């Protein structure tokens, strides 16, 4: 199981979610990804994207200047 980090800070919707989907495509089942974002829509959208695609949102936490989401594919 690998845990990569994807830093999408400074990028706006839809770019962080496209990057997440591209990472999912390249990932093996069970791989984890830490996604860093500061787009205002990222919080609800990462939750909804996981629900829609069957990925699992392990954790989502607000950092001082960004949102940190851990996703398992």
């Amino acid at each position, binding site marked *: 199981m690998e845990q990569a980090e994807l830093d999408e800070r400074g990028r*706006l919707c*839809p770019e962080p979610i496209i990057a997440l989907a591209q990472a999912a495509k390249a990932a093996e089942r069970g791989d984890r990804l830490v996604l860093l974002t500061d787009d205002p829509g990222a919080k609800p959208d990462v939750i909804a994207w996981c629900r829609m695609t069957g990925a699992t949102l392990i954790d989502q936490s607000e950092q001082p200047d960004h949102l940190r989401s851990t996703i398992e594919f």
Partner: protein
Amino acid sequence: MVAALDRAWASPAGTHAEGRFASDVASAARASVAKSLGCQPEGIYFTSGVGSALERAVTGLGERPWALAATERLAALSTTAERHTIVGVDSQGALDLEGFRAAAQPNLGIVVQSANPELGTPQPVESLLAMTRAHGGVLVVDHSLFMPWATPPAEWDVLVLEANSWGGPPGVGVLAARASANYRFPDPEGVDSSPPVALQAAAAAALEDCLARSPQTARQEWGSRLLDGAAAELAALPNVEVYRAPGAWAPVLTLSCLYVSGMQVVQELDRRGIAVGSGSACVASAFEPSHVLAAIGGFTGGNVRVSLGLDEHEATEAVQALLRALPEVLAELREDEWNKPS
């Protein structure tokens, strides 16, 4: 109406002939709206829009605790912020009655939109009314989006509407208060919140005309049939999520499209002559995503909000045009977005 536009330019507070004329026009507008709503003219107030009507509804009902759903308008959420309990909604946009029951206390005020503003899900207004009655509280019903499409609930303490929903002029909100609510319209001296008298007259005439042209039940029937059909077709598109529950009201439908920007979808549809809204952060003036979609656990990016016009033929053509254009727009935009160098 023409006379009102021509002559009702003076302040209705003026004691000269023009002022008295403007005052008569304003009184006639209040009487007309009261007749349309089945309430007393003394309880009718015009404001500069629905936000200002909600703000005045809350402040005019005095100090009290409030409970409202997370999907209410930002004006209602912010005006009650010092003493409110926020209640959740489910994934279909229906509010959580148990959450309201848990928040019940003496003197409780509740603000509720008669249906979810983006999903059209009708809310259990009667149950909320019973709850406020049982606790000596008040119920403010925001029916501003749905007036031409559904009759307002039979009982309320304060009702809030907006004239452009029924084809009236923009910038006119209506607040109707029952005498039993002990409502006091807050209008500090020197701060005139009311729209020009001519616009009040136009709003009242448009409401009469809208209700005379077609009953709300008939409009609701074709509107919801049209949107139900569109929702089924749109839900079949890849990577599109449609937020519409069975029994949802017209005139609203919302959907979100993965891997595209809401702003670009709106612009591409606009280039094809189709005007839609969006709750995506990139389109919102405050750069915040739709709090309504976030509350139901929806996807806020690539969002498209459809709102029907009042003419059945024109609305049907517009929806058909959207159904034809959207697959092509999404395919083009996704091609661009996926191939963009990172």
